């Protein structure tokens, strides 16, 4: 499967007191400072839309967002162009970008202490209905790579996987582990 448009969402701890629009200046600051190793273009405000992409940081390679789809806030990164390596590596690449952003948000001077990513709940999705429609066949093709990646991410700990059941939605799995794992630890694991 030649899938490059993949993404990941790291769910935030519920009850965050940070308003969505507070992320707008944060993302603009990241652009000013060249804070991420990607070509950052602009920030888009969708805070007026309920349970949507929230605030988007548009980059050339992919988009970040403080996303509220499903009324669950989380940090999303998804790739828009070709990614290097095999599927496991591609998942590690998007996770690395997402986790870097999670860490920066957790440590941001304005946000710090009001938002955290426990790391024990993630969503992995394929943003390409041609290569990866939401079918059992797609899951069969992706499963080995996804599990390799999850073994790396969670260092062999147990996890559960739940598939998005609605065939109209894009292919997506939700992964849960019992215990939280710090963002820094997850980042270290996907970076090696």
């Amino acid at each position, binding site marked *: 499967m*030649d899938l490059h*448009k993949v993404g990941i969402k790291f769910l935030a701890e519920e009850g965050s007191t940070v308003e969505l*629009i507070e992320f*707008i*200046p944060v993302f*603009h600051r990241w*652009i*000013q400072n060249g804070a991420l190793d990607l*070509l950052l*273009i*602009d920030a*888009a*405000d*969708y*805070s*007026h*839309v*309920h*349970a*949507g*992409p929230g605030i*988007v940081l*548009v980059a*050339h390679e992919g*988009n970040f*967002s403080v996303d509220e*789809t*499903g009324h669950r806030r989380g940090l999303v990164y998804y790739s*828009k*162009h070709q990614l290097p390596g095999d599927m496991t590596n591609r998942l590690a690449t998007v996770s690395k970008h997402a986790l870097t952003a999670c860490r920066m948000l957790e440590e941001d001077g304005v946000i710090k202490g009001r938002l955290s990513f426990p790391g024990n709940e993630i969503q992995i999705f394929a*943003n*390409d*209905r*041609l*290569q990866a429609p939401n079918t059992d066949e797609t899951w069969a093709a992706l499963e080995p790579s996804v599990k390799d990646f999850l073994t790396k991410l969670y260092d062999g700990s147990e996890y559960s996987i739940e598939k998005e059941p609605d065939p*109209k*939605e*894009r292919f997506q799995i939700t992964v849960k582990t019992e215990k939280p794992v710090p963002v820094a630890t997850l980042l270290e694991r996907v970076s090696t």
Partner: protein
Amino acid sequence: MTTWKAQLADRMPAALGEEIDVFESQIQLKHQGKVDDKLFAETRLRRGVYGQRYDNGQRHDGVEQRTLDFPSADKTKGPETMWDAPGMQRIKIPFGGMTPEQMDVLADLAEEYSDAISHVTTRQDIQLHYVHIDDTPDLMRRLAAVGITTREACGNSVRNVTACPIAGVCHEESFDVTPYARACMQFLLGHPDVQDFGRKFKVAFSGCKHNACGLTNMHDLGYIARVKETNGEIKRGFEMVVGGGLGAVPYDAKVFDEFVPEEEILPMAQAISRIFARHGEKRNRGRARIKFLVDKLGIDKFREMVLEERKVMPHDDAWTDYLKELPDYNEKPLKNAGSMNAGVSDAEFETWRATNVYRQKQDGYAVATVTLPMGDITSWQFRQLADIARRFVGDSVRTTVEQNIVLRWVSESDLPALYEELKRIDLHEPGAGTIVDVTACPGTDTCKLGIASSRGLASELRERLGSKYLNLDTAIKGLHIKISGCFNSCGQHHLADLGFYGVSRKVGGTTVPHFRVVLGGQWSENAGSYGLTIGAIPSKRVPDFIDQVTEKYLQERENNERFQSYIQRVGKKELKKLVDKLATVPPYDIDRSYYSDWRDPREFTVSDIGTGECAGEVVSMIDFDLQAAEREYFDAQLEFDDGAFQKADERAYKAMLQAAKGLVRLEFQDIKDDPNQIVNEFKKRFYDTGIFKDKYAGGKFAEYLFNRHEDTDRTFNRDNARHLIEETQLFIEAVHACNLKLQEQQAAVVNDIRKRPAATGA
């Protein structure tokens, strides 16, 4: 590897598939450097593939102007347009009609190629932003497979044909205009006679004269349904209007014919297209819309030319073929008619029903409006809404020019269940068509032309007004707010009770986002009349202005006086005081919030602040000249309101001269008050040198001055005075912009000198 092209080959109409293949080939040729930039730009525009802000590879990040280093840095998709820069894809939705299947596809495309948001525009289109051009052929194929084309969604072509979203179910319509709008769209799409326009051409259909739905008065070509009885026989036809338009200077459409029989509407559209293509302006984009041609020729002459053309056109069966199918055209409801069960007393539901439900002329059915915040809907919501449509109404879904979606033919007994379903997907917001349902163009969020953040302001207003909506007076609830990011009027600010469009002002050496206030426009009567501008206020004071002007209205209105009547009675002189009261901008070091726009923390010209703070108190002569010009312009409006059209015209002209003089004085201190000298010096120093030219509008604003100056045998009448007043305001804005540009250039030179190493040996 499978491709969308292969997968959808059997589902795309052959002609559409071939067109997209051709477009894909052109993309490949452009990749190889074999297509000229301008040609490719027009090619992609005609397929709805638009540019977007920062696509020249430059972006001011609040600190400095920075280059966006796109990977394909050497490739462009048009003049000064980087290949890799995200762009906008406009998707035509004729008369706003969508099926659930199409909604599903639109949602998927937004998710996979954009940012999971579909945006409904003020002309019933759908737009996707941040799209990469390499994705567009597949995006188009997926649309083609469900019967949607993006062809001629942009460029100098016939744009989306719009129509009243409640056509066929409206109590006041003469008849359902839907099949006529569809036939018109199909007839004009790709027609050889519409390929050589100097500018875009917009067509709208309305079922009646008095409601807003079709907005025919602001269209290049508008059709208003009419029936005529002759010898006991009822005949369908249309009042046809031509030459309306918003844009920088709004024009009212002129009545071409009060009754064009149905079999003649397509040939007349063709004849008009041929005259427009042949005689319309081509070189000067600023004067290329058909409104200028109609204005130049006069409606009588224009009509004469069109009717002559009509006589010599070869017959085309397509003119009337669709009429044979008309008797079969009938929108079938999915469910049986029903009535609301007594006892539904949910307060939230009733609030929603009061503003978002329209009872159809067919007993037992209603239209439910799904309020989209600023026209935005997420991909998940869109797919869910498609399923809701499948359950309640089938294919009877339309977008609206107020950036919402309507579900038609809802059995009234289903309304509570429908509301619950909309609530489940967070699309149950009440207030459709009220003051909280703010319309805004993309503005500085994504538009290359945006000056101020129309969407940022709209978000802020929605929140503030929404929080107190239930306590607002009924007269205030019914007002319309419409916001454009610049003078081009995509937000339709001319038609609003409270309209705003983005401008900028230099304060203490720093740029401050402002909005010009346009009051008293008429939304009803198919956009019956346009508001006139009062003055500019800082962006951050707009919410205060709305509070104060609506409060003033409530206190001072007589009986049940409507807002528009109140504005006319009180007059702009009185309202200007309100604007002036809010016009002051505190110094940067006192309140920095004024120096950035809503929902965008970047300071526009941080690099200038050092200079600006040092020179904060210095007011140059041009500031006084511009102030005088603004005053003269305002007086011109007052004269106009008093019906003194000649005086209004002369004052407007004087205002332009005053502003031009201000610029000239920057270089030539001893400029006299002689109009010839002012115009000649202005032309020599600022127009001929290209300094005054706007990046996108070119020299058209200067031409407003030249045209008026040369018009020594001028006819003084209402229309001419109104157009000149609008042009004057734009000219003054252009002088502001030119002054700003000159100051920035000067500051850059000073900074450059400062940065240079000290000369040795001095």
